[in-house]
């Protein structure tokens, strides 16, 4: 376990060629609440558990799924405050892109900029990596897209993906259920079923969040009433 001797400093490689701090960051993500995303033929849906630490917390004030531009939304697994910082930086970068090129930022560009920020924090002194993985869902001229960005700064485009506590079960479930020509509504149902799989306790419209974007290219977070409708269809 000579790796542990190198686990204190982010910017030092271990003999096995790993940056142990990043591995630890991925562990932080792995113990966060489950979130997942599915890319349908005509849109993308992202969903997450919204388990609050106590019943006294005002759940209406918390929104985990955020908007980065009118046509790109994001959800995270891991440390909430870290995701806030990333979302804020990404929003600013999207605005700067628009000011520079007078074009709304394509999804791939925004993902790349966000990933660059996350990578910078793995190669600087005195900082730590972000303890979140992000699922970025967007719809632009290249169609619907879903990207996952990790604390190391690497990103992949996924047809369907999950992260957080229940990742292995969720991914197995998605592998079985995913079809290329899924419609957005089917994707929402599949997302709900996947969330239900590993859910501790009773799933309801108050302890999950769903965001989706369709051909109208406007990302929106569903209201609890709409979530309740979808849940009723799934039951």
């Amino acid at each position, binding site marked *: 376990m000579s790796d542990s001797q190198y686990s204190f400093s982010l910017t030092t490689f271990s003999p096995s060629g790993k940056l142990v701090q990043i591995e630890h960051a991925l562990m932080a993500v792995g113990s966060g609440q489950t979130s997942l995303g599915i890319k349908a033929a005509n849109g993308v849906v992202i969903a997450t558990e919204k388990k609050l630490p106590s019943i006294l917390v005002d759940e209406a004030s918390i929104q985990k799924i955020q908007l980065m531009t009118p046509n790109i939304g994001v959800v995270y697994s891991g440390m909430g405050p870290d995701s806030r910082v990333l979302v804020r930086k990404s929003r600013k970068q999207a605005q700067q892109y628009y000011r520079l090129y007078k074009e709304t930022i394509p999804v791939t560009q925004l993902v790349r900029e966000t990933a660059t920020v996350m990578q910078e924090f793995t190669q600087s*002194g005195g900082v730590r990596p972000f303890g979140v993985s992000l699922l970025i869902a967007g719809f632009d001229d290249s169609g619907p897209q879903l990207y996952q960005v990790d604390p190391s700064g690497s990103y992949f485009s996924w047809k369907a993906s999950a992260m957080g506590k229940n990742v292995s079960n969720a991914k197995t479930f998605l592998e079985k259920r995913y079809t290329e020509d899924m419609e957005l509504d089917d994707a929402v149902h599949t997302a709900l079923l996947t969330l239900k799989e590993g859910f501790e306790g009773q799933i309801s419209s108050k302890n999950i969040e769903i965001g989706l974007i369709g051909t109208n290219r406007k990302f929106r977070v569903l209201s609890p009433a709409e979530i309740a409708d979808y849940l009723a269809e799934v039951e």
Partner: protein
Amino acid sequence: MAKARVDLPPKGGFSFDLCRRNEMLTKKGIQLPGFRKTGTTIVGLIFEDGVILGADTRATEGPIVADKNCEKIHYMAPNIYCCGAGTAADTEAVTDMVSSQLQLHRYATRRESRVITALTLLKSHLFSYQGHVSAALVLGGVDVTGPHLHTVYPHGSTDTLPFATMGSGSLAAMAVFESKYKEGLTNCRDKCRRLEAELQLAGNCTSAAVRRSPVAEEGSREMVVSRRKRREIASCSSRLHLLREFGEWIRELAREDGIQLVGEAICSGIFNDLGSGSNVDVCVITKGKTDYLRNHQLPNPRTYISSRGYSFDRGYTEVLSTKITPLKLKAEVVENDAMEE
């Protein structure tokens, strides 16, 4: 080892680094490059349901018309628009920048933007550049607190008004507003028409400024009287007091009357001010809905004599002298065998 990335707030304000160099260059005789000014008439007024903004569409570069149909009403937020006068680049850049900042603010607060927010962002930016950013703006919009209309001056001061005009044509447009806005439009059209005729007869800006006073009754005698009162009226506090008096009538103006009044004010600027011209753009902002009426009026169409082109008969141009040089073709005829295939 790389330094930690710290997000320092940018140091704003005017950078005086190049001033010495510029002074040296002007001493040597090199002139600063010119910039395109908009030479504009822009107006705004508050009516019953919201705000109406209007602008002409001429952009000038000194005595030359650089753009015959430019857009002077800039987007700030879905419920806030801004007309810009002064240097075109300055107004574009400053409105783009504040529009971007408002969008980021909307994401963070998840609320509709307020006009006062846009106003404060604009004025702090302009103040920090000490008037070197030559942008005079009419900012209007409707938010949760109601309809608002403000003017922003290049040095960073602002006014909050029920009706406002800016730009080189502002006096011509204000003449229209001050006369017609006063008594509501339907009951005193004749009085207003007569007033306007006299104003247009005068023709130049300074006299329009003199006449810019509350005219209780019609007749030129009252105008002479008001000239004596000019000093009082010119002072800031009295002006505001007068405008507050008009506040009662503001809410009664209906949308169509408002649009028509704005159109008239802009046309007054277009026809009486050399720096303004071409077409009229109007933007009507009400709660929940914005109508951008681009080229709402086109009072200056291009007139062509004939769409089939011109035909000039003999005699239109005087012939002074004629010299005819025949072109001689030299051709040699050579006897030869027939062509072989």
